């Protein structure tokens, strides 16, 4: 036996005094009418919760935190949907990024092209990121990743948050669809009816989808929502080390 003590073992009263049972919470998801709803459940078994917010232009969730853009405000919500912080923001939609541990990290305001860093001190400007950004994320603690759409397809710009140096890379010359950068730095993008997952140091995965993907959103660190075109419904993609699962979400969002 190792010489480390788990104190709980000595306390008969521990039982469940320091434990908590609840319905599994995956994250908060924005529906087409701008409501933010809790998605509960586990792989293959999903339930929608009640709406926690309305008038949402864009949202992204790491599971433990959710960033929601209202028309002129940026909100930070905890896992229960309670507003933890709020900042004034330019009108329009926004993109968000989280750290690998699910902490809010970056926000991009689509209308102004401004990229901001979310820190304990609040919002810190990182400059003008341009108008063609479709997804943002963190490659690591010191590098932001911007996915941009152009006539040449999807490109990836990596910006050092320390030095400001920039590196460009072609992500896909054949893709013009939505894209997303996960909190752990994986890049997910759409090519035709395939969802492609690029992970540093690993072969790119390709996942056939039942219909073309219209939109991607982060539900939690592990889960991504893929909204399908032509009323094809919503899929949930689970990204875990060495494992990608694809599930369908219930259509009725209450």
């Amino acid at each position, binding site marked *: 036996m*190792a010489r*480390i003590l788990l104190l709980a073992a000595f306390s008969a009263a521990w039982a469940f005094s320091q434990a908590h049972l*609840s319905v599994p919470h995956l994250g908060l998801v924005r529906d087409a009418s701008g409501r933010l709803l809790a998605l509960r459940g586990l792989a293959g078994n999903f339930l929608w919760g009640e709406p926690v917010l309305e008038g949402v232009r864009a949202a992204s969730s790491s599971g433990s935190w959710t960033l929601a853009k209202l028309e002129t405000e940026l909100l930070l919500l905890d896992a229960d949907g309670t507003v933890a912080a709020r900042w004034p923001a330019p009108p329009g939609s926004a993109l968000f990024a989280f750290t690998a541990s699910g902490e809010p990290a970056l926000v991009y305001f689509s209308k102004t092209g401004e990229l901001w860093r979310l820190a304990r001190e609040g919002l810190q400007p990182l400059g003008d990121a341009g108008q063609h950004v479709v997804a943002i994320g963190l490659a690591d603690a010191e590098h932001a990743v911007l996915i941009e759409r152009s006539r040449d397809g999807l490109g990836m710009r990596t910006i050092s948050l320390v030095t400001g140096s920039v590196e460009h890379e072609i992500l896909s010359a054949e893709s013009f669809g939505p894209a997303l950068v996960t909190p752990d730095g994986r890049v997910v993008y759409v090519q035709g009816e395939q969802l492609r997952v690029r992970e540093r140091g690993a072969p790119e995965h390709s996942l056939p989808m039942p219909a073309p993907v219209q939109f991607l959103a982060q539900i939690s660190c592990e889960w991504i929502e893929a909204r399908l075109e032509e009323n094809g419904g919503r899929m949930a993609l689970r990204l875990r080390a060495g494992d990608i699962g694809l599930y369908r979400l219930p259509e*009725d969002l209450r």
Partner: protein
Amino acid sequence: MRAGTLILLLAPVCLPAQFRITILDGRDERPVGEVVNLGSLDASDFLDTRFQLRNISNGTTVLQVLSVAGVGFSFTAKPSTPVAVPAAGSLTFTVRFEPKAPGTYSAVLTVNTITVLLRAVAMAGPVVWLGAEGRQMKLSASDAVDFGTVERGAVARRRFVLENPYETALTVSSLEVSGASFRGPEAIQLPLVLAPQDRAAFEVVFAPQSAGAAVGRLTVNGRIFLLTGQGVEPRFPKPEIVLDPAAPQSGQQVKVMVRLASTAPRAGTGELRLRFEPLTPGLSDDPAIQFLSPSGRVVPFSVEEGEQTARIAGRSEVEMQTGTTAGRVILTAQLDSQKEEAVVTLAAMPVAVDSLRVTRNAGAFELNLTAFDNTRSVSQLVFTFYDRQGRAVEPGAIAVDASREFQRYFENSGAGGMFALRAVFPVSGEASAVTGVEVELRNAVGTTRSARASF
């Protein structure tokens, strides 16, 4: 008294023209003279003529005599005599002319003291028979031949026979079938000359174009026979519910398809329903057991003519969540009167772990586990932490009886058998040396041991 009554009854009879006789022809009323030409008809037909007697006197008149005398003439409906007819009152009766052979016929119709000469002509023409040999029925003009109830897309056939019962040849110059749902005559060539005692058969086909009553006409040398039939929409083949995977468990998403036993004879819509019966009586429903897109427990589907697979929201299948409660999911596909059930048995199983994650906080480990127990009977949890060398950390396996907490949770969660467990373990010593954990969960079926989660 009796003689007086007789005199009273006979007295009006002696009065001339107390009845006016007319022929009723639909809504028309034609006065009758001393001679009435009833017209001509085929010798194998009969002709019914409806007469009316109206009392045109000021008092009651007794109809004492009503008779028709002549070969081929008879009454089909006549009042019993004597019968008193009040002033302005009327009686009706029908005279049938049914000749036995071609020729000119006459008869005397007597109404009390009034006599009318009835005349009619029977012409030679083929006798029309309906049915197969040995079970034939002679048809008269205006007879209706019913083809019964036939599904759209199917046909019913009736066999007709033309017969020449006479000593001279007959020519059939006109033989036609009309009506959108009727066709023919089949298996006969025109013009047709029927030698004496000769017969010729043909068929008429009823192929309904739509649901509802259908009417047509068969015309033989100008004689018209009604054709009737009832079209109905064809029955759908039996629907079959196909699952992929065929024997699902709790916590899965299953593809559900509705396939017909054969191609659909027409387009139509139906419903696919599910209901859930938990294995343990009294357990609350599991709302996650539902179809997903469209979502709910009832989804409509459609079938197109000529196709075998139903379309559900434009797709050939709909996904269903099996939820996290053991029991039976009863799926029912209903397409018109056709109904099919499939039962999915979700067997009770040990706890299924979905995720296990541990994070280090100051002086403690926070363990987050998501799982489901489809029996909702979790009793004991056992946590075992490991160091870098894979050795169990003191005090070894930490067992917790959590049955009451889980029971309370499952009674109130409204989320089936799924749960998230967050447990904090205070730790002393070199916490960084602890790198893994395993969790055992026991329920009514057995014990599950999670994969080791590293942290």
